[in-house]
Structures are given as C-alpha cells and as structure tokens.
C-alpha cells in the first residue's frame, strides 16, 4: 500500500513542464501539498470529468505532457471517458488514479474497487498503451519513469491507504484557476 501524499510528491517533484488536471476530493489536497503551481488545474466539482478535461488539453497541447490525478470514485463516474481516450490515443496523456477504495469526502463508504472492480483492466480494455498498478513505495520510480518517459495514453493505478490526511486547500474560484493556468502556459510558450 502506498502513502498517497508521498507517492504524489515523488511523481511531481522536478515535474518540468508537466501540466496537471486534478479531480475533486483528496487528490486535490495531495497535488496541492506536493506542488501548488499555476500548471495545476483543480476541479472542485463536475465529478467524472477530470479525464476528459485532460483529453481536451492533451489534444490542444501535443507539445506538453498532461497528467490527470484523480480518485477511484471520480474515475468510476467517468469510465466511458477511458474508451473515448482509447479511441483518440493521445501520446501525451497519463491518468493517475489514487485508489483508496473509498469515497473519502463523504464518510469513507466503500467504492466499487473495494469489491475487486479493476480499473487497470478497464484501461487495458480501452486500448491504453500501458496500464499498471503500483502498491509498494519502492515501485514509485517505475511509476515516475512511466509518467515522464513512456508514450501514452498511460494509466497509472496507485493502491493507496484510506487514511484521512490534512486538507491542503488550493484556490477554488474557477475563473482565477483558469487565468493562472492559461497565463502560466503562455509564459512557458514564450520561454521555448
């Protein structure tokens, strides 16, 4: 079992120009705790849309790697989007699911993955180039190598503990988040 905050921190340390879309709930706090910069876009609602926001961004910016960080509950609400991503085959898109097998925001009710539903099997069935689970801290470098070096679409599934951690709260206003993200993207564009 991985410690979710440590795993996310290890994936996002020295992230280069990686763009991050973050699904609602605990992944938001993990991503904000690891690296709260303008290249993160946090969804505080629209549950089930994170992967598709990632696809739209990946198609718009083929020059950049895009990672979606989300939880098992959010991913389960948008399973069809894995099929949609499978059709488009974006080589610059990775979906990272932090799976604690519970709905953490609403009282820790068990989610479908708690009953053995396999998100990795779904991703493989949806023609992701690579999909695998990680459950041990020593495997984190492998996950990192996959995220930054392999052609996508990638599906990184992390077995994480169900402990509740401190909520690290980033910006919530959608207009400000869009502004920060697009300004940061523009600034990067000028550098290159």
């Amino acid at each position, binding site marked *: 079992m991985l410690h979710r905050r440590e795993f996310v921190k290890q994936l996002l340390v020295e992230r280069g120009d990686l763009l991050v*879309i973050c699904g609602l709930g605990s992944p938001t706090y993990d991503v904000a705790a690891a690296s709260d910069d303008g290249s993160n*876009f946090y*969804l*505080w*609602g*629209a*549950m*089930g*849309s*994170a*992967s*598709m*926001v*990632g*696809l*739209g*961004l*990946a*198609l*718009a*910016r083929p020059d950049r790697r895009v990672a979606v960080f989300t939880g098992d509950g959010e991913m389960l609400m*948008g399973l*069809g*989007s894995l*099929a*949609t991503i499978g*059709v*488009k085959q974006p080589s610059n898109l990775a979906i990272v699911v932090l799976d604690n097998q519970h709905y953490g925001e609403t009282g820790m009710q068990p989610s479908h993955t708690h009953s053995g539903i396999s998100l990795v099997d779904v991703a493989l069935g949806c023609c992701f180039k690579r999909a695998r689970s990680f459950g041990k801290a020593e495997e984190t470098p492998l996950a990192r190598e996959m995220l930054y070096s392999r052609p996508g679409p990638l599906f990184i599934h992390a077995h994480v503990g169900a402990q509740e951690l401190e909520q690290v709260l980033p910006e919530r206003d*959608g*207009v400000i*988040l*869009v502004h920060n*993200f*697009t300004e940061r*993207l523009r600034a990067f564009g000028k550098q290159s």
Partner: protein
Amino acid sequence: MNLAERSALDWPDVIYSNFRRAGIRQVGYVPDAGLSRLIQLCQSDPEIADVVLTTEEEGIGLVAGAALGGQRSAMLMQSSGVGNCVNMFSLVKQCRLPCLIFVTMRGEYAEFNPWQVPMGSITDACLRLCGFLVYRIEKAEDVADVVAAACDISFDSNHSVAIILSQRLIGRKRWNN
C-alpha cells in the same frame, strides 16, 4: 431544386464553414442522424480533432480542457443529451469558459417516438436554467447568420451558447411503420 430546398440541405455545410472561420479545432459529439453530415465534414478535416463520446457530459470536460490549452471547440448532441450534461455545465459556468453546443431536436415537430418528448419539451428551458444563451433555428436561411453570431458571442464573451436546430429544420425521421 429551388433555392430554399438547396439551403435546407446545405445547413451542415454552413455550420462547418463557420467552424473554419471561428478557428474551431476540436469537435466532440454523440452521433445523431440529423448531425451525420456535419460530423462527416469535421472528420474529413485534418485540422479538426473529432472526438466521439460515450455520453454527452464527456464533451463538456473536453470543451473545458481545449479552452485551458488555448483551442476553440464545439459540441454536437441530440436534445436528449442536454439532460445528461446538467451538472457538467457547472464546469464551464464556474470557470467562465466559452461553450458552444449544437443541439438537434427530437420530441417536437412530427415526433414518432413518445420517449423523446419528455426531454425534448424541456431542452430549451433546461439550457437557459444552466446559464446558456439559446438561439433556436427553424429555417435554413437563418443558419448562416445565427451560427456566425453565436460563434462570435461565445468565444468573444466567454459564454455558454446553445444553438437549437429544430426538428422542422432537420426534417422528419423516417420510420418503417
């Protein structure tokens, strides 16, 4: 074929030419018979990424992601799909992103299938409740003007805009009964 009949057949081409003019680069859709010509035009354009969706709500995420990446996009759906999107519309409203959707109507003029009527009869009101500016098109000769204006206000004002293509414009669906 008289001029009115010709323009009735050409409305998908008129919409597509507006996609080109507005610089739309991504088009998400759930297929509908009334949209088939427009979908084909988008698919055959190498500068447009056509994204077939499993459900319409995916398209709202796609539109938001495209906007974050600096691209313009549009969504095509049947009226039944509007109901699928209701919560997702909060994404484009909260973030004040442009969201241009084209809705082909079912459940109104000469509808054969009664199951289409409940959603069809509330599509317009539903879109307005969700914060959309709604432009309904009944006649083929209005397509060019209205679509051009809708593209402009959506992308220039960062607003959600829905163009409703009425069942009368699209034509009756043929049933073998």
